[in-house]
């Protein structure tokens, strides 16, 4: 039983990371109907910024964390304005191809600037456990979970209680009516990209201490995030977080109790989740089924 609880807590930690990146995918998909395949690479790139602030400029962890979020916001807005906005009237396929171009760009830039060498990345949490009876609870997992939850709660409050948050929601629901009341929908989409990049940065900074920092570090995480987003419902913010947590816990449990899966087959299991959800319940757990006239 102790093993079970430990795996659940570890799963919540991993799942919070999948959930935050999944939420980034959902934010952009809700507003534009496009999956940003570069979300993981943008997260990796911003994590390098955090690393540079800490290692080269001597910042302590939390100021570097905050500085990186700010950088991510600006990066996301900039990428949307410069790369995505010019093709926003083109087909979905065109925009998706642009995001794949961004994958290659950020990956190449990171290798060029920081080299592909694997680097250690600091964790803000002590590498210790709390002992409750026989159960040892990883402080890193709990810390990760709490950080993600606090940031998601802040993001929710921003969407719910601020004027820009309301305009962001309106733009995603009905762009034409939003323009008629004076909302600059193009900028709202850019801010949406900025917020998504911030969530990605959080995922990247919380992943890097365990996976180490390298240009390919977010590629597997992005697959898990896809699985989480599809599981929760690709247009449901609550679903993204819930899907991430479910997936994180599920994968940890399967990894420790199903012998042939182990640690190596986690990725195929995530892909299987995507496949099964899309076949059985395409709207996901929290999504509303959409009927479309053809």
């Amino acid at each position: 039983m102790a093993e079970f609880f430990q795996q659940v807590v570890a799963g919540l930690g991993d799942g919070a990371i999948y959930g935050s990146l999944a939420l980034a995918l959902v934010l952009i998909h809700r507003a534009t109907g496009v999956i940003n395949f570069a979300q993981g690479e943008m997260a990796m790139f911003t994590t390098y910024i955090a690393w540079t602030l800490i290692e080269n400029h001597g910042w302590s962890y939390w100021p570097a964390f905050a500085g990186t979020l700010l950088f991510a916001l600006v990066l996301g807005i900039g990428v949307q304005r410069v790369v995505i906005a010019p093709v926003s009237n083109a087909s979905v396929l065109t925009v998706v191809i642009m995001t794949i171009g961004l994958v290659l760009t950020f990956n190449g830039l990171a290798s060029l600037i920081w080299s592909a060498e694997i680097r250690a990345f600091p964790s803000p949490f002590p590498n210790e456990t709390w002992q409750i009876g026989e159960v040892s609870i990883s402080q890193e997992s709990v810390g990760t979970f709490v950080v993600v939850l606090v940031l998601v709660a802040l993001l929710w409050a921003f969407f719910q209680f601020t004027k820009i948050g309301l305009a962001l929601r309106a733009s995603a629901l009905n762009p034409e009516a939003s323009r008629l009341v004076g909302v600059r929908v193009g900028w709202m989409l850019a801010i949406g990209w900025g917020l998504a990049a911030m969530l990605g940065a959080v995922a990247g900074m919380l992943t890097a201490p365990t996976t180490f920092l390298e240009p390919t570090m977010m590629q597997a995480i992005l697959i898990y995030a896809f699985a989480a987003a599809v599981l929760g419902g690709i247009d449901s913010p609550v679903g993204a977080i819930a899907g991430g947590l479910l997936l994180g816990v599920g994968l940890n449990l399967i990894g420790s109790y199903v012998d042939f899966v182990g640690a190596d087959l986690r990725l195929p299991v995530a892909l299987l989740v995507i496949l099964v959800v899309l076949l059985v319940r395409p709207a996901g757990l929290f999504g509303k089924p959409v009927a479309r006239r053809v």
Partner: protein
Amino acid sequence: MALLELKDVEARYGPVRALHGISLAVDEGQIVAVLGANGAGKTTTLRAISGTVKRTGEIVYDGRSLGRRGPEAVAKLGVAHVPEGRGTFSELSVEENLRLGAYTRRGSLDGDIERMSGYFPWIGTRLGQHAGTLSGGEQQMLALARALMGRPRLLLLDEPSLGLAPLVTREIFRIVKELNEQDGLTVLVVEQNAAIALEVASHAYVLEVGKVAVSGTSEELARNESVRKSYLGY
């Protein structure tokens, strides 16, 4: 001087031309009606003004050309467009819809929301309700209230009577008339129901296939033989 003036305005949806050179003028403080059959270009005329369709020709509002401005910029100048089909945000609450209407303004909105509850008493008690669960008439009233939240100088109303019971239609036009008389709100209203439109408006334009066919004061048009036969049905 006219608050709004259109000269030879053309507009198209892709290859299809919907307006073939419309000219009209609306003076400050007037209610002007645009009448015509389906497909005559009534809705497109409003869309050309608010910038939700590509247009050429001259559109001057308050001395400024609207020709190159998009809908966000036109809204900011004090032109509120209540589109056909209302365009309320059905997933948002009544209050959120109202707040969005005042998006271009700063400052507290509580007074304005209270004022809207004065015009439409049900609004005050149902601020938290999702707009999508309102009846058709309530959605039309909400769309109108949302437009008024921006304290516009010019209101563009597209078919406010569409799909509504006659009594609800009357109520909406009564409120529009009241706003016009008390606050000097200028209104350009597109309407299929010519009888009620001519009753409220001082001037009217009749469109046929993207052009102005007849125009004049409401009394003149109500006396006009062909207008009576085609649009008033007597």
